[in-house]
């Protein structure tokens, strides 16, 4: 059974490399004067029509002939590593922002500043995510984050306003919990998604991924553990991805949830669901709510072909122009990374306006640890799971996860 599977994987891998070879030969036969560029991203076909339009217009601006390569999300990094070792990196590479520093650390990327680009006027957190050892390696057209979504009808029926502190959230969640509905839901799964959703509680409370055993981190974990223990949150959160949390919320099984703006289309499609969102509550009213920043960076890999690298730089500049960022943000329910564009965009799109401050206060997951972030992220979700399942007290959970 397993050996057959291996053969299938090998066969698939060889098909992929054949496909690649085919692409690169097709790419070199571009008409004179234009540059052939390969663009690799993880958008699953059928690709977003708006992104396709942006790519096409940027191809015209940079006088390039594009070959698009869509690699489904989970396989992108593996593909990039494979391409790095066979020296077949694409000319323009899109990366999820927490991966940028790790790939930059390997030497596979060129600083984006080589092409006259800079992070000036761009949301600080996104620049931090794209900077490795003081050099900027990519720009991200749009950014997202997470917030506390709530069911307006359930809250008004219970006579409460959205919580702003942990104490309020605990009390409200308890009040909103009925035999069929949990007051609060979040993703506590043992993947980076779980870590991503834990960060606001940790950061807003002054905790840091550099010092996992800090009292602030213990406090944050104790807070979430308490919500699970008092029955306001389902014990199943340890297996819920963010999409599961969204499904629970849409089905009316959760009155409040932590989630991101990319869920807005599904919320709008749900009939009879009245929802809104606020920044994620902090422990005390004086703390600032800080959420992690998500989004994708466009980078220029180190292919050694200076002409193509320069053209790729121009292409990235075009994709991250204020106009294209705005079109992209509107299509994907996110905000432009460019501060001025974001402010204008928020005015025109009231449903996303609330994310403007969240993103301005947003932090990059890799800002402090860079390429060491994945190891810390694993420890963070492990500690969270140990705490939420009652396998260890919050303090012991951090100690145990830190030693792994």
């Amino acid at each position, binding site marked *: *059974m*397993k050996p057959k599977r291996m053969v299938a994987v090998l066969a698939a891998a060889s098909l992929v490399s054949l496909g690649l070879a085919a692409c690169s030969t097709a790419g070199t036969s571009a008409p004179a004067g234009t540059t052939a560029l390969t663009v690799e991203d993880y958008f699953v076909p059928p690709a977003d029509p708006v992104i396709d339009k942006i790519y096409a217009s940027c191809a015209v601006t940079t006088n390039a002939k594009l070959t698009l390569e869509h690699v489904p999300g989970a396989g992108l*990094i*593996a593909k990039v*590593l*494979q391409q*790095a*070792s066979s020296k077949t990196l694409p000319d323009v590479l899109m990366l999820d922002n927490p991966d940028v520093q*790790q*790939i930059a*650390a*390997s*030497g*596979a990327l060129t600083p984006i500043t080589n092409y006259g680009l800079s992070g000036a006027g761009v949301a600080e957190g996104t620049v931090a995510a794209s900077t490795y050892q003081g050099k900027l390696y990519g720009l991200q057209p749009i950014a997202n984050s997470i917030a506390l979504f709530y069911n307006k009808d359930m809250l008004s029926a219970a006579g409460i306003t959205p919580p702003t502190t942990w104490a309020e959230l605990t009390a409200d969640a308890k009040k909103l919990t009925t035999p069929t509905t949990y007051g609060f839901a979040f993703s506590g*799964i*043992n*993947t980076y998604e779980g870590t991503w959703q834990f960060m606001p509680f940790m950061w807003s409370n002054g905790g840091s991924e550099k010092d996992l055993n800090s009292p602030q981190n213990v406090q944050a974990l104790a807070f979430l553990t308490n919500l699970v223990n008092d029955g306001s949150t*389902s*014990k*199943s959160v*340890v*297996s819920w991805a963010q999409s599961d949390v969204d499904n629970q919320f849409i089905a009316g*099984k959760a009155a409040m949830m932590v989630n991101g703006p990319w869920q807005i289309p599904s919320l709008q499609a749900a009939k009879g669901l009245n929802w809104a969102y606020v920044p994620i509550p902090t422990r005390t009213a004086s703390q600032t709510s800080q959420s992690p920043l998500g989004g994708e960076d466009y980078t220029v890999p*180190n292919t050694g072909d200076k002409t193509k690298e320069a053209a790729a730089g121009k292409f990235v500049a075009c994709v991250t122009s204020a106009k294209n960022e705005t079109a992209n943000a509107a299509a994907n329910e996110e905000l432009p990374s460019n501060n001025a564009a974001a402010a204008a965009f928020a005015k025109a799109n009231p449903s996303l306006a609330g994310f403007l401050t969240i993103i301005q206060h947003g932090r990059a997951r890799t800002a402090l640890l860079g*390429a060491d972030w*994945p*190891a810390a992220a*694993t420890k963070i979700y*492990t500690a969270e*799971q*140990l705490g*939420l*399942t009652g*396998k*260890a007290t919050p303090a012991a959970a951090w100690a*145990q996860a830190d*030693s*792994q």
Partner: protein
Amino acid sequence: MTATDLSLHASSEGPASDRGAPSQRPRHRVRLDSVSHWFFVAPAVLYLGLFFGYPIVKNVIMGFQDYSTSTFFTGVAPWVGFANYVQVVSSSIFATALTNTALFTVGSIVGQFALGLLLALFFKRRFPLSGVLRALMLLPWLLPLIASSAVWKWMLDQGSGIVNQTLVFLHVVPTSVPWLVSPDYALVSVIIVNIWLGIPFNVTILYGGLQGIPEELYEAAALDGATKWKAFRHITWPSLRPVVSVVLVLGVVYTLKVLDIILGLTGGGPANSTETLATDSYHQSFVLFSFGDGAALSNILIVISLVFTVVYLRLNRRALDE
């Protein structure tokens, strides 16, 4: 490799001893012969070297290197000696993963083998629709693993899963069981799913073995008064032993490295309660991209597999010799 070794021996020594007799063959013919022998062996050697030898050697070497994301770009993987092994073994997760691997393997094998043997014995008696039912037994084998683990995940859901709804409805349990979300149940749940998955393999091989036992033995034994349990104890079991050893050895080797079911059901969670050496190795290599640590873990897993196989084969040979 043993097959290749044997044929290599045959090609180098076999013809020479033939030619010890005063044969009148010309000398160059001898060389041609041995060269042509090599041609026959070459495809197998090439295949084994390329698809078995190279990956294993590479994995062993990788276990001693700091093989990270940058290695792919620079091609540089510094030699770190046993540092990877020290790192993975001293991690607090190693003891958990080792225990879970042992429990998972023993639990799965015992369950699969016991149920498989019972079903094989059951199907040995022909009855209406037995053929159809036996074919249906193969179903778990035919489904893609990712699909079956996704369906099991739904079925075992704490709130709305059919398993809990049925158990609660029948008053078997007072409240729904947290199959996959409680560290106390998750490993058991994963073992149950793996047993379900392994039954077809066990039934098929054991059923085949049962078919090979001559009917006369049972008839003769029946005349001496040995039926049912006695017949099983003194005829079926001893005759089935070689098949049983194959099933168990293959079963253990397959189970030790099970990855997809665990990834599909729990991803090693909650709180590492279903993390095994295989899932940990996968996580090191393909999530953290720390290939050196991942290789070290998988080498440990390979050694455990080998040790088990060798010990078991030894025991088995001794038993047969007696």
